[in-house]
Protein backbone atom coordinates (compact mmCIF):
# COMPACT_ATOMS: atom_id res chain seq x y z
CA UNK A 1 0.00 0.00 0.00
CA UNK A 2 2.69 2.40 1.02
CA UNK A 3 4.92 1.41 -1.87
CA UNK A 4 1.97 1.94 -4.18
CA UNK A 5 1.36 5.48 -2.97
CA UNK A 6 5.04 6.31 -3.34
CA UNK A 7 4.87 5.07 -6.90
CA UNK A 8 1.83 7.28 -7.60
CA UNK A 9 3.61 10.28 -6.17
CA UNK A 10 6.49 9.58 -8.52
CA UNK A 11 4.40 9.70 -11.68
CA UNK A 12 4.65 13.49 -12.19
CA UNK A 13 8.42 13.31 -11.63
CA UNK A 14 8.70 10.49 -14.14
CA UNK A 15 6.65 12.38 -16.72
CA UNK A 16 8.82 15.48 -16.34
CA UNK A 17 11.99 13.41 -16.58
CA UNK A 18 10.85 11.46 -19.64
CA UNK A 19 9.82 14.65 -21.44
CA UNK A 20 13.11 16.31 -20.59
CA UNK A 21 15.08 13.26 -21.65
CA UNK A 22 13.26 13.23 -24.98
CA UNK A 23 13.99 16.91 -25.59
CA UNK A 24 17.60 16.39 -24.57
CA UNK A 25 18.34 13.51 -26.90
CA UNK A 26 16.09 14.58 -29.77
CA UNK A 27 18.90 16.49 -31.56
CA UNK A 28 21.18 13.46 -31.26
CA UNK A 29 18.53 11.10 -32.63
CA UNK A 30 17.74 13.55 -35.41
CA UNK A 31 21.43 13.56 -36.24
CA UNK A 32 21.61 9.76 -36.25
CA UNK A 33 18.66 9.42 -38.64
CA UNK A 34 19.85 12.43 -40.60
CA UNK A 35 22.97 10.54 -41.52
CA UNK A 36 20.74 8.16 -43.52
CA UNK A 37 18.65 10.81 -45.26
CA UNK A 38 19.00 11.67 -48.93
CA UNK A 39 19.14 15.32 -49.98
CA UNK A 40 15.50 15.21 -51.08
CA UNK A 41 14.50 13.87 -47.66
CA UNK A 42 16.24 16.73 -45.91
CA UNK A 43 14.64 19.49 -47.86
CA UNK A 44 11.05 18.34 -47.65
CA UNK A 45 9.57 18.14 -44.20
CA UNK A 46 12.59 17.45 -42.08
CA UNK A 47 10.07 17.01 -39.28
CA UNK A 48 10.01 13.34 -40.21
CA UNK A 49 12.58 11.67 -38.06
CA UNK A 50 12.80 8.42 -40.02
CA UNK A 51 14.15 8.75 -43.58
CA UNK A 52 11.91 7.51 -46.43
CA UNK A 53 14.70 5.16 -47.51
CA UNK A 54 17.94 4.53 -45.69
CA UNK A 55 20.52 6.23 -47.83
CA UNK A 56 23.78 4.51 -46.91
CA UNK A 57 25.67 6.32 -49.63
CA UNK A 58 26.09 9.29 -47.25
CA UNK A 59 28.75 7.34 -45.40
CA UNK A 60 30.62 6.53 -48.60
CA UNK A 61 30.31 10.14 -49.78
CA UNK A 62 31.55 11.51 -46.48
CA UNK A 63 34.36 8.99 -46.25
CA UNK A 64 35.57 10.11 -49.70
CA UNK A 65 36.56 13.40 -48.05
CA UNK A 66 37.54 16.59 -49.86
CA UNK A 67 39.83 17.49 -52.72
CA UNK A 68 41.26 14.00 -52.96
CA UNK A 69 41.96 13.75 -49.22
CA UNK A 70 39.96 10.84 -47.77
CA UNK A 71 38.23 11.35 -44.43
CA UNK A 72 40.41 8.61 -42.98
CA UNK A 73 43.38 10.95 -43.31
CA UNK A 74 41.66 13.49 -41.03
CA UNK A 75 40.91 10.78 -38.51
CA UNK A 76 44.53 9.69 -38.63
CA UNK A 77 45.68 13.28 -38.08
CA UNK A 78 43.32 13.69 -35.13
CA UNK A 79 44.36 10.37 -33.65
CA UNK A 80 48.09 11.10 -33.85
CA UNK A 81 47.60 14.54 -32.34
CA UNK A 82 45.26 13.40 -29.57
CA UNK A 83 47.45 10.49 -28.57
CA UNK A 84 50.59 12.63 -28.40
CA UNK A 85 48.79 15.39 -26.50
CA UNK A 86 47.24 12.91 -24.08
CA UNK A 87 50.52 11.13 -23.35
CA UNK A 88 52.32 14.45 -22.95
CA UNK A 89 49.66 15.95 -20.71
CA UNK A 90 49.34 12.98 -18.38
CA UNK A 91 53.07 12.30 -18.04
CA UNK A 92 54.10 15.91 -17.51
CA UNK A 93 51.16 16.69 -15.22
CA UNK A 94 51.93 13.69 -13.00
CA UNK A 95 55.63 14.60 -12.89
CA UNK A 96 54.89 18.22 -11.95
CA UNK A 97 52.15 17.27 -9.50
CA UNK A 98 54.58 14.98 -7.68
CA UNK A 99 56.91 17.94 -7.19
CA UNK A 100 54.16 20.09 -5.71
CA UNK A 101 52.63 17.35 -3.58
CA UNK A 102 55.67 15.53 -2.27
CA UNK A 103 58.78 17.67 -2.23
CA UNK A 104 59.53 20.59 0.03
CA UNK A 105 61.41 23.29 -1.82
CA UNK A 106 61.86 27.03 -1.66
CA UNK A 107 59.09 28.87 -3.47
CA UNK A 108 56.76 25.91 -3.63
CA UNK A 109 53.83 27.81 -2.15
CA UNK A 110 54.24 30.79 -4.46
CA UNK A 111 54.49 28.66 -7.59
CA UNK A 112 51.48 26.65 -6.55
CA UNK A 113 49.51 29.85 -5.97
CA UNK A 114 50.48 31.00 -9.46
CA UNK A 115 49.33 27.66 -10.84
CA UNK A 116 45.98 28.20 -9.14
CA UNK A 117 45.65 31.63 -10.73
CA UNK A 118 46.38 30.25 -14.20
CA UNK A 119 43.64 27.72 -13.53
CA UNK A 120 41.18 30.56 -13.95
CA UNK A 121 42.88 32.11 -16.95
CA UNK A 122 41.06 31.01 -20.10
CA UNK A 123 43.29 29.90 -22.99
CA UNK A 124 41.28 31.93 -25.47
CA UNK A 125 42.72 35.12 -24.03
CA UNK A 126 46.25 34.34 -25.13
CA UNK A 127 45.63 32.70 -28.48
CA UNK A 128 46.80 35.64 -30.58
CA UNK A 129 50.04 36.11 -28.63
CA UNK A 130 50.85 32.42 -28.56
CA UNK A 131 50.32 32.39 -32.29
CA UNK A 132 52.80 35.24 -32.66
CA UNK A 133 55.43 33.34 -30.67
CA UNK A 134 54.96 30.14 -32.65
CA UNK A 135 54.89 32.16 -35.85
CA UNK A 136 58.35 33.53 -35.11
CA UNK A 137 59.57 30.04 -34.16
CA UNK A 138 58.34 28.97 -37.64
CA UNK A 139 56.14 26.29 -36.06
CA UNK A 140 52.98 27.16 -37.98
CA UNK A 141 51.65 24.23 -40.03
CA UNK A 142 53.37 21.73 -37.80
CA UNK A 143 51.88 19.94 -34.81
CA UNK A 144 54.54 21.40 -32.49
CA UNK A 145 52.43 24.35 -31.17
CA UNK A 146 49.87 21.80 -30.01
CA UNK A 147 52.09 18.94 -28.84
CA UNK A 148 54.99 20.76 -27.14
CA UNK A 149 52.79 22.67 -24.64
CA UNK A 150 51.13 19.36 -23.74
CA UNK A 151 54.51 18.01 -22.63
CA UNK A 152 54.94 21.16 -20.51
CA UNK A 153 51.84 20.50 -18.40
CA UNK A 154 50.12 23.56 -19.83
CA UNK A 155 46.66 22.56 -18.60
CA UNK A 156 46.94 23.42 -14.90
CA UNK A 157 43.71 21.62 -14.18
CA UNK A 158 45.34 18.21 -14.50
CA UNK A 159 48.28 19.22 -12.30
CA UNK A 160 45.87 20.51 -9.66
CA UNK A 161 43.76 17.35 -9.78
CA UNK A 162 46.80 15.09 -9.45
CA UNK A 163 48.30 17.16 -6.61
CA UNK A 164 45.06 16.71 -4.68
CA UNK A 165 45.12 12.99 -5.35
CA UNK A 166 48.80 12.41 -4.56
CA UNK A 167 48.30 14.11 -1.20
CA UNK A 168 45.94 11.29 -0.21
CA UNK A 169 48.67 8.65 -0.68
CA UNK A 170 50.12 7.89 2.78
CA UNK A 171 53.60 9.33 3.25
CA UNK A 172 54.72 6.29 5.22
CA UNK A 173 54.96 4.41 1.93
CA UNK A 174 57.46 6.93 0.55
CA UNK A 175 59.49 6.81 3.72
CA UNK A 176 59.66 3.03 3.69
CA UNK A 177 60.91 3.21 0.12
CA UNK A 178 63.52 5.84 1.04
CA UNK A 179 64.80 3.59 3.80
CA UNK A 180 65.13 0.85 1.20
CA UNK A 181 67.40 3.22 -0.69
CA UNK A 182 64.98 4.53 -3.28
CA UNK A 183 65.60 7.94 -4.87
CA UNK A 184 62.88 10.62 -5.21
CA UNK A 185 62.40 9.68 -8.85
CA UNK A 186 62.28 6.02 -7.85
CA UNK A 187 59.54 6.73 -5.30
CA UNK A 188 57.59 8.64 -7.94
CA UNK A 189 57.75 5.77 -10.40
CA UNK A 190 57.37 2.85 -7.98
CA UNK A 191 54.97 4.27 -5.38
CA UNK A 192 53.19 7.41 -6.50
CA UNK A 193 52.37 6.47 -10.10
CA UNK A 194 50.83 3.05 -9.33
CA UNK A 195 48.83 4.43 -6.41
CA UNK A 196 47.39 7.36 -8.36
CA UNK A 197 46.12 5.12 -11.13
CA UNK A 198 42.43 6.10 -10.83
CA UNK A 199 43.29 9.80 -11.08
CA UNK A 200 45.65 9.12 -13.96
CA UNK A 201 42.89 7.31 -15.82
CA UNK A 202 40.52 10.24 -15.26
CA UNK A 203 43.18 12.62 -16.58
CA UNK A 204 43.83 10.42 -19.59
CA UNK A 205 40.16 10.31 -20.51
CA UNK A 206 39.64 14.04 -20.26
CA UNK A 207 42.94 14.97 -21.89
CA UNK A 208 41.93 12.75 -24.79
CA UNK A 209 38.41 14.20 -24.99
CA UNK A 210 39.55 17.80 -24.93
CA UNK A 211 42.21 17.26 -27.51
CA UNK A 212 39.94 15.19 -29.79
CA UNK A 213 37.29 17.94 -29.63
CA UNK A 214 39.78 20.78 -29.81
CA UNK A 215 38.95 23.28 -32.49
CA UNK A 216 40.84 26.49 -31.72
CA UNK A 217 44.38 25.09 -31.82
CA UNK A 218 44.07 23.16 -35.08
CA UNK A 219 42.26 26.17 -36.56
CA UNK A 220 45.17 28.42 -35.64
CA UNK A 221 48.10 26.18 -36.40
CA UNK A 222 47.11 23.65 -39.07
CA UNK A 223 46.28 25.47 -42.25
CA UNK A 224 46.97 22.81 -44.88
CA UNK A 225 44.02 20.52 -45.66
CA UNK A 226 46.34 17.50 -45.64
CA UNK A 227 47.04 18.21 -41.92
CA UNK A 228 43.43 18.95 -40.96
CA UNK A 229 41.98 17.25 -37.94
CA UNK A 230 38.44 15.86 -37.91
CA UNK A 231 37.19 19.07 -36.26
CA UNK A 232 38.47 21.20 -39.11
CA UNK A 233 37.37 18.76 -41.80
CA UNK A 234 33.78 18.66 -40.54
CA UNK A 235 33.54 22.37 -41.09
CA UNK A 236 34.31 21.89 -44.77
CA UNK A 237 30.96 20.10 -45.18
CA UNK A 238 29.28 23.25 -43.95
CA UNK A 239 30.86 25.31 -46.68
CA UNK A 240 28.16 26.31 -49.20
CA UNK A 241 30.74 25.89 -51.98
CA UNK A 242 31.00 22.19 -51.14
CA UNK A 243 27.32 21.79 -52.01
CA UNK A 244 26.23 21.43 -48.38
CA UNK A 245 25.89 17.69 -48.35
CA UNK A 246 24.09 17.38 -45.02
CA UNK A 247 23.75 13.62 -45.09
CA UNK A 248 27.47 13.10 -45.59
CA UNK A 249 28.23 15.73 -42.98
CA UNK A 250 26.01 14.04 -40.39
CA UNK A 251 27.50 10.67 -41.26
CA UNK A 252 31.04 11.86 -40.67
CA UNK A 253 30.03 13.89 -37.60
CA UNK A 254 28.77 10.65 -36.08
CA UNK A 255 31.95 8.83 -37.07
CA UNK A 256 33.92 11.58 -35.32
CA UNK A 257 31.93 11.01 -32.12
CA UNK A 258 32.60 7.25 -32.10
CA UNK A 259 35.89 7.42 -30.13
CA UNK A 260 34.17 9.65 -27.56
CA UNK A 261 31.30 7.20 -27.18
CA UNK A 262 33.58 4.16 -26.97
CA UNK A 263 35.74 5.74 -24.27
CA UNK A 264 32.59 6.77 -22.40
CA UNK A 265 31.18 3.25 -22.43
CA UNK A 266 34.48 1.81 -21.26
CA UNK A 267 35.17 4.32 -18.49
CA UNK A 268 31.75 5.65 -17.50
CA UNK A 269 32.51 5.26 -13.80
CA UNK A 270 35.70 7.34 -13.98
CA UNK A 271 34.02 10.05 -16.00
CA UNK A 272 31.04 10.53 -13.71
CA UNK A 273 33.26 10.41 -10.63
CA UNK A 274 35.81 12.73 -12.20
CA UNK A 275 33.20 15.38 -12.79
CA UNK A 276 31.38 14.92 -9.51
CA UNK A 277 34.42 15.07 -7.30
CA UNK A 278 36.84 17.25 -9.23
CA UNK A 279 34.48 19.51 -11.10
CA UNK A 280 35.93 18.64 -14.49
CA UNK A 281 33.97 20.31 -17.19
CA UNK A 282 32.76 17.81 -19.74
Amino acid at each position, binding site marked *: MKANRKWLKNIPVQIV*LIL*LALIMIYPLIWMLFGSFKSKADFFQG*SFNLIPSTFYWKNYADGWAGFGGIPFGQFIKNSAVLSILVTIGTVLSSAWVANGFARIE*FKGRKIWFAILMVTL*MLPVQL*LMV*QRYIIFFHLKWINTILPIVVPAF*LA*YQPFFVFLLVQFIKTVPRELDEAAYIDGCSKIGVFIKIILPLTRPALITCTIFAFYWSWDD*FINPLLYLNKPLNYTVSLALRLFNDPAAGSNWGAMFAMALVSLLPVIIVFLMFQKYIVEGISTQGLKG
Partner: protein
Amino acid sequence: MRKVAISGTDNRMGYLFIAPWLIGFFFITLVPMILSFYFSFTQYDLLSSPVFVGFENYKNLIINDERFHTSLWVTFIFVIVVVPLRLAVSLGIALLLFRDPKGHSLYKTLFYLPSLFGGSVAIAVMWRQLFSSYGPIASFIRLFNPGFEKSIVGSPNTASLTIIILLAWQFGSTMLIFLAGLKNIPKVYYEVSKIDGAGPVTTFFKITFPQLSSVFFFNLILTIINSFMIFSQAYIITEGGPVDKTLYLVLYAFKRGFEYFQMGSSSAITWILLLILSAVIGFFFANSKRWVYYESK
Protein backbone atom coordinates in the same frame (compact mmCIF):
# COMPACT_ATOMS: atom_id res chain seq x y z
CA MET B 1 67.59 11.63 12.20
CA ARG B 2 66.69 9.84 9.03
CA LYS B 3 63.35 11.60 8.96
CA VAL B 4 65.03 14.97 8.53
CA ALA B 5 66.93 13.67 5.57
CA ILE B 6 63.74 12.33 4.06
CA SER B 7 61.35 15.19 4.43
CA GLY B 8 63.81 18.08 4.56
CA THR B 9 63.77 20.62 1.74
CA ASP B 10 65.24 19.52 -1.52
CA ASN B 11 65.35 22.47 -3.89
CA ARG B 12 67.15 20.68 -6.68
CA MET B 13 64.65 17.83 -6.89
CA GLY B 14 61.69 20.14 -6.36
CA TYR B 15 62.60 22.31 -9.30
CA LEU B 16 63.47 19.27 -11.39
CA PHE B 17 59.92 18.05 -10.92
CA ILE B 18 58.13 21.31 -11.57
CA ALA B 19 60.50 22.31 -14.40
CA PRO B 20 58.18 21.36 -17.30
CA TRP B 21 55.36 23.44 -15.90
CA LEU B 22 57.71 26.29 -15.04
CA ILE B 23 59.09 26.42 -18.60
CA GLY B 24 55.58 26.20 -20.00
CA PHE B 25 54.35 28.89 -17.65
CA PHE B 26 57.09 31.29 -18.76
CA PHE B 27 56.90 30.70 -22.49
CA ILE B 28 53.25 30.00 -23.14
CA THR B 29 51.57 32.02 -20.42
CA LEU B 30 53.74 34.75 -18.92
CA VAL B 31 55.57 35.89 -22.07
CA PRO B 32 52.35 35.93 -24.17
CA MET B 33 50.70 37.94 -21.40
CA ILE B 34 53.45 40.53 -21.31
CA LEU B 35 53.52 40.63 -25.12
CA SER B 36 49.77 41.00 -25.21
CA PHE B 37 49.93 43.92 -22.81
CA TYR B 38 52.66 45.58 -24.86
CA PHE B 39 50.97 44.91 -28.22
CA SER B 40 47.75 46.43 -26.97
CA PHE B 41 49.57 49.78 -27.07
CA THR B 42 50.96 49.25 -30.57
CA GLN B 43 49.98 48.85 -34.14
CA TYR B 44 51.21 45.46 -35.30
CA ASP B 45 50.37 43.43 -38.40
CA LEU B 46 52.64 40.45 -37.64
CA LEU B 47 54.98 41.09 -40.58
CA SER B 48 56.42 44.53 -39.85
CA SER B 49 57.58 45.48 -36.36
CA PRO B 50 55.11 46.88 -33.83
CA VAL B 51 54.69 50.68 -33.69
CA PHE B 52 53.91 52.22 -30.32
CA VAL B 53 50.65 54.21 -30.41
CA GLY B 54 49.81 54.69 -26.74
CA PHE B 55 46.16 54.34 -25.82
CA GLU B 56 45.04 54.65 -29.44
CA ASN B 57 43.71 51.07 -29.71
CA TYR B 58 41.69 51.35 -26.50
CA LYS B 59 40.40 54.79 -27.47
CA ASN B 60 39.33 53.61 -30.90
CA LEU B 61 37.54 50.59 -29.53
CA ILE B 62 35.76 52.38 -26.74
CA ILE B 63 34.87 55.59 -28.56
CA ASN B 64 34.67 54.89 -32.28
CA ASP B 65 34.27 51.21 -32.97
CA GLU B 66 30.59 50.37 -33.29
CA ARG B 67 31.33 46.71 -33.92
CA PHE B 68 33.06 46.60 -30.56
CA HIS B 69 30.02 48.15 -28.89
CA THR B 70 27.80 45.54 -30.52
CA SER B 71 30.24 42.85 -29.47
CA LEU B 72 30.19 44.02 -25.84
CA TRP B 73 26.41 44.18 -25.85
CA VAL B 74 25.80 40.73 -27.35
CA THR B 75 28.36 39.19 -25.01
CA PHE B 76 26.67 40.74 -21.96
CA ILE B 77 23.22 39.58 -23.02
CA PHE B 78 24.59 36.14 -23.76
CA VAL B 79 26.23 35.79 -20.34
CA ILE B 80 23.25 37.24 -18.47
CA VAL B 81 20.92 34.72 -20.10
CA VAL B 82 23.14 31.63 -20.21
CA VAL B 83 24.47 31.69 -16.65
CA PRO B 84 21.14 31.69 -14.74
CA LEU B 85 19.49 29.44 -17.32
CA ARG B 86 22.16 26.77 -17.16
CA LEU B 87 22.42 26.91 -13.36
CA ALA B 88 18.64 26.76 -12.90
CA VAL B 89 18.17 23.86 -15.31
CA SER B 90 21.02 21.84 -13.88
CA LEU B 91 20.05 22.47 -10.27
CA GLY B 92 16.39 21.74 -11.00
CA ILE B 93 17.18 18.44 -12.66
CA ALA B 94 19.75 17.51 -10.03
CA LEU B 95 17.02 18.01 -7.39
CA LEU B 96 14.64 15.78 -9.35
CA LEU B 97 17.26 13.07 -9.76
CA PHE B 98 18.24 13.36 -6.10
CA ARG B 99 14.78 12.04 -5.17
CA ASP B 100 16.08 8.80 -6.66
CA PRO B 101 13.26 8.14 -9.13
CA LYS B 102 13.14 4.83 -10.99
CA GLY B 103 15.76 4.68 -13.72
CA HIS B 104 17.71 7.54 -12.23
CA SER B 105 21.09 6.39 -13.48
CA LEU B 106 19.73 6.04 -17.03
CA TYR B 107 18.40 9.61 -16.86
CA LYS B 108 21.73 10.78 -15.50
CA THR B 109 23.50 9.27 -18.51
CA LEU B 110 20.96 10.68 -20.99
CA PHE B 111 21.21 14.18 -19.52
CA TYR B 112 24.97 13.98 -19.54
CA LEU B 113 25.29 12.87 -23.18
CA PRO B 114 25.03 16.37 -24.70
CA SER B 115 27.81 17.59 -22.40
CA LEU B 116 29.93 14.61 -23.31
CA PHE B 117 29.90 15.64 -26.95
CA GLY B 118 30.17 19.17 -25.65
CA GLY B 119 32.13 21.58 -27.71
CA SER B 120 32.76 19.16 -30.56
CA VAL B 121 32.43 20.45 -34.09
CA ALA B 122 30.16 17.49 -34.86
CA ILE B 123 27.50 18.95 -32.57
CA ALA B 124 28.03 22.50 -33.76
CA VAL B 125 27.54 21.66 -37.45
CA MET B 126 24.44 19.66 -36.54
CA TRP B 127 23.09 22.55 -34.46
CA ARG B 128 23.32 24.88 -37.41
CA GLN B 129 21.09 22.58 -39.47
CA LEU B 130 18.75 21.91 -36.55
CA PHE B 131 17.82 25.60 -36.52
CA SER B 132 18.01 26.26 -40.26
CA SER B 133 14.88 26.99 -42.27
CA TYR B 134 14.76 23.31 -43.33
CA GLY B 135 15.44 22.00 -39.85
CA PRO B 136 12.94 20.35 -37.51
CA ILE B 137 12.62 23.36 -35.20
CA ALA B 138 11.44 25.55 -38.07
CA SER B 139 9.10 22.75 -39.17
CA PHE B 140 7.73 22.60 -35.65
CA ILE B 141 7.07 26.35 -35.60
CA ARG B 142 5.32 25.99 -38.96
CA LEU B 143 2.73 23.77 -37.28
CA PHE B 144 1.46 26.86 -35.46
CA ASN B 145 2.54 29.54 -37.88
CA PRO B 146 2.43 28.19 -41.44
CA GLY B 147 3.97 31.33 -42.90
CA PHE B 148 7.23 30.87 -40.99
CA GLU B 149 9.97 30.64 -43.59
CA LYS B 150 12.94 32.15 -41.80
CA SER B 151 16.09 30.43 -40.78
CA ILE B 152 16.41 30.68 -37.02
CA VAL B 153 20.23 30.73 -37.11
CA GLY B 154 20.12 33.17 -39.99
CA SER B 155 17.87 35.82 -38.43
CA PRO B 156 19.47 38.65 -36.46
CA ASN B 157 16.93 38.44 -33.65
CA THR B 158 17.22 34.73 -32.97
CA ALA B 159 20.78 33.78 -33.96
CA SER B 160 22.22 34.31 -30.48
CA LEU B 161 19.31 32.35 -29.02
CA THR B 162 20.40 29.19 -30.85
CA ILE B 163 23.81 29.39 -29.20
CA ILE B 164 22.24 30.14 -25.82
CA ILE B 165 20.12 27.01 -26.20
CA LEU B 166 23.20 25.01 -27.19
CA LEU B 167 25.01 26.01 -24.01
CA ALA B 168 21.95 25.45 -21.84
CA TRP B 169 21.51 22.03 -23.48
CA GLN B 170 24.96 21.05 -22.26
CA PHE B 171 24.15 21.28 -18.57
CA GLY B 172 25.26 17.72 -17.81
CA SER B 173 28.53 18.32 -16.00
CA THR B 174 27.09 21.18 -13.96
CA MET B 175 24.24 18.85 -13.00
CA LEU B 176 26.64 16.08 -11.96
CA ILE B 177 28.51 18.51 -9.71
CA PHE B 178 25.23 19.60 -8.09
CA LEU B 179 24.22 15.98 -7.60
CA ALA B 180 27.50 15.18 -5.89
CA GLY B 181 26.96 18.23 -3.65
CA LEU B 182 23.43 17.16 -2.77
CA LYS B 183 24.66 13.72 -1.78
CA ASN B 184 27.11 15.31 0.65
CA ILE B 185 24.42 17.03 2.71
CA PRO B 186 23.98 15.05 5.94
CA LYS B 187 20.61 13.27 6.01
CA VAL B 188 20.15 14.30 9.65
CA TYR B 189 19.36 17.87 8.60
CA TYR B 190 16.41 16.72 6.52
CA GLU B 191 15.12 14.50 9.31
CA VAL B 192 15.25 17.38 11.77
CA SER B 193 13.46 19.74 9.39
CA LYS B 194 10.77 17.11 8.82
CA ILE B 195 10.23 16.79 12.56
CA ASP B 196 9.98 20.58 12.81
CA GLY B 197 7.28 20.44 10.14
CA ALA B 198 9.11 22.44 7.47
CA GLY B 199 7.62 22.32 3.95
CA PRO B 200 9.66 21.57 0.82
CA VAL B 201 10.21 25.28 0.00
CA THR B 202 11.44 26.12 3.49
CA THR B 203 13.62 23.03 3.49
CA PHE B 204 15.16 24.11 0.18
CA PHE B 205 15.98 27.64 1.31
CA LYS B 206 16.95 26.82 4.90
CA ILE B 207 18.86 23.59 4.37
CA THR B 208 19.51 22.52 0.78
CA PHE B 209 20.64 25.83 -0.65
CA PRO B 210 22.92 26.96 2.21
CA GLN B 211 24.48 23.50 2.35
CA LEU B 212 24.93 23.54 -1.41
CA SER B 213 26.15 27.12 -1.61
CA SER B 214 29.86 26.34 -2.00
CA VAL B 215 29.09 23.94 -4.86
CA PHE B 216 26.74 26.53 -6.33
CA PHE B 217 29.46 29.15 -6.13
CA PHE B 218 31.93 26.86 -7.89
CA ASN B 219 29.43 26.18 -10.70
CA LEU B 220 28.59 29.87 -10.94
CA ILE B 221 32.20 30.93 -11.44
CA LEU B 222 32.88 28.12 -13.91
CA THR B 223 29.76 28.94 -15.94
CA ILE B 224 30.54 32.66 -15.99
CA ILE B 225 34.06 32.04 -17.31
CA ASN B 226 32.82 29.55 -19.90
CA SER B 227 30.10 31.84 -21.21
CA PHE B 228 32.38 34.86 -21.48
CA MET B 229 34.82 32.69 -23.44
CA ILE B 230 32.28 31.48 -26.01
CA PHE B 231 34.11 31.07 -29.29
CA SER B 232 34.15 27.80 -31.23
CA GLN B 233 30.41 27.30 -31.35
CA ALA B 234 29.77 30.84 -32.52
CA TYR B 235 32.59 30.60 -35.03
CA ILE B 236 31.13 27.45 -36.56
CA ILE B 237 27.39 27.99 -36.24
CA THR B 238 26.92 31.66 -37.03
CA GLU B 239 30.41 32.97 -37.82
CA GLY B 240 29.60 36.04 -35.76
CA GLY B 241 26.68 36.98 -37.99
CA PRO B 242 24.06 37.86 -38.99
CA VAL B 243 24.91 41.57 -38.73
CA ASP B 244 27.32 40.88 -35.85
CA LYS B 245 24.55 39.62 -33.57
CA THR B 246 26.74 36.77 -32.38
CA LEU B 247 30.07 38.56 -32.57
CA TYR B 248 31.06 37.69 -29.01
CA LEU B 249 34.21 39.32 -27.65
CA VAL B 250 36.60 36.38 -28.12
CA LEU B 251 35.36 35.96 -31.68
CA TYR B 252 35.86 39.66 -32.34
CA ALA B 253 39.38 39.54 -30.91
CA PHE B 254 40.06 36.55 -33.16
CA LYS B 255 38.75 38.37 -36.23
CA ARG B 256 40.76 41.49 -35.47
CA GLY B 257 43.85 39.35 -35.14
CA PHE B 258 43.55 36.78 -37.88
CA GLU B 259 41.27 38.36 -40.45
CA TYR B 260 42.40 41.98 -40.31
CA PHE B 261 45.89 41.32 -38.87
CA GLN B 262 45.47 44.04 -36.26
CA MET B 263 47.27 42.31 -33.43
CA GLY B 264 47.32 45.51 -31.37
CA SER B 265 43.61 46.06 -31.48
CA SER B 266 43.02 42.36 -30.89
CA SER B 267 45.21 42.42 -27.77
CA ALA B 268 43.36 45.48 -26.49
CA ILE B 269 40.04 43.63 -26.81
CA THR B 270 41.53 40.74 -24.88
CA TRP B 271 42.61 43.01 -22.04
CA ILE B 272 39.24 44.72 -21.86
CA LEU B 273 37.63 41.28 -21.72
CA LEU B 274 40.02 40.13 -18.99
CA LEU B 275 39.24 43.28 -17.02
CA ILE B 276 35.49 42.75 -17.30
CA LEU B 277 35.80 39.08 -16.40
CA SER B 278 37.96 39.86 -13.35
CA ALA B 279 35.52 42.53 -12.24
CA VAL B 280 32.54 40.18 -12.50
CA ILE B 281 34.33 37.33 -10.74
CA GLY B 282 35.76 39.74 -8.16
CA PHE B 283 32.24 40.98 -7.48
CA PHE B 284 30.97 37.48 -6.78
CA PHE B 285 33.98 36.60 -4.64
CA ALA B 286 33.52 39.80 -2.64
CA ASN B 287 29.90 39.16 -1.76
CA SER B 288 30.29 35.39 -1.52
CA LYS B 289 30.97 35.65 2.22
CA ARG B 290 27.37 36.62 2.74
CA TRP B 291 25.78 33.60 1.12
CA VAL B 292 28.42 30.92 0.64
CA TYR B 293 28.94 28.63 3.61
CA TYR B 294 32.02 26.52 3.87
CA GLU B 295 32.10 23.81 6.45
CA SER B 296 34.38 25.05 9.19
CA LYS B 297 36.66 22.36 10.40
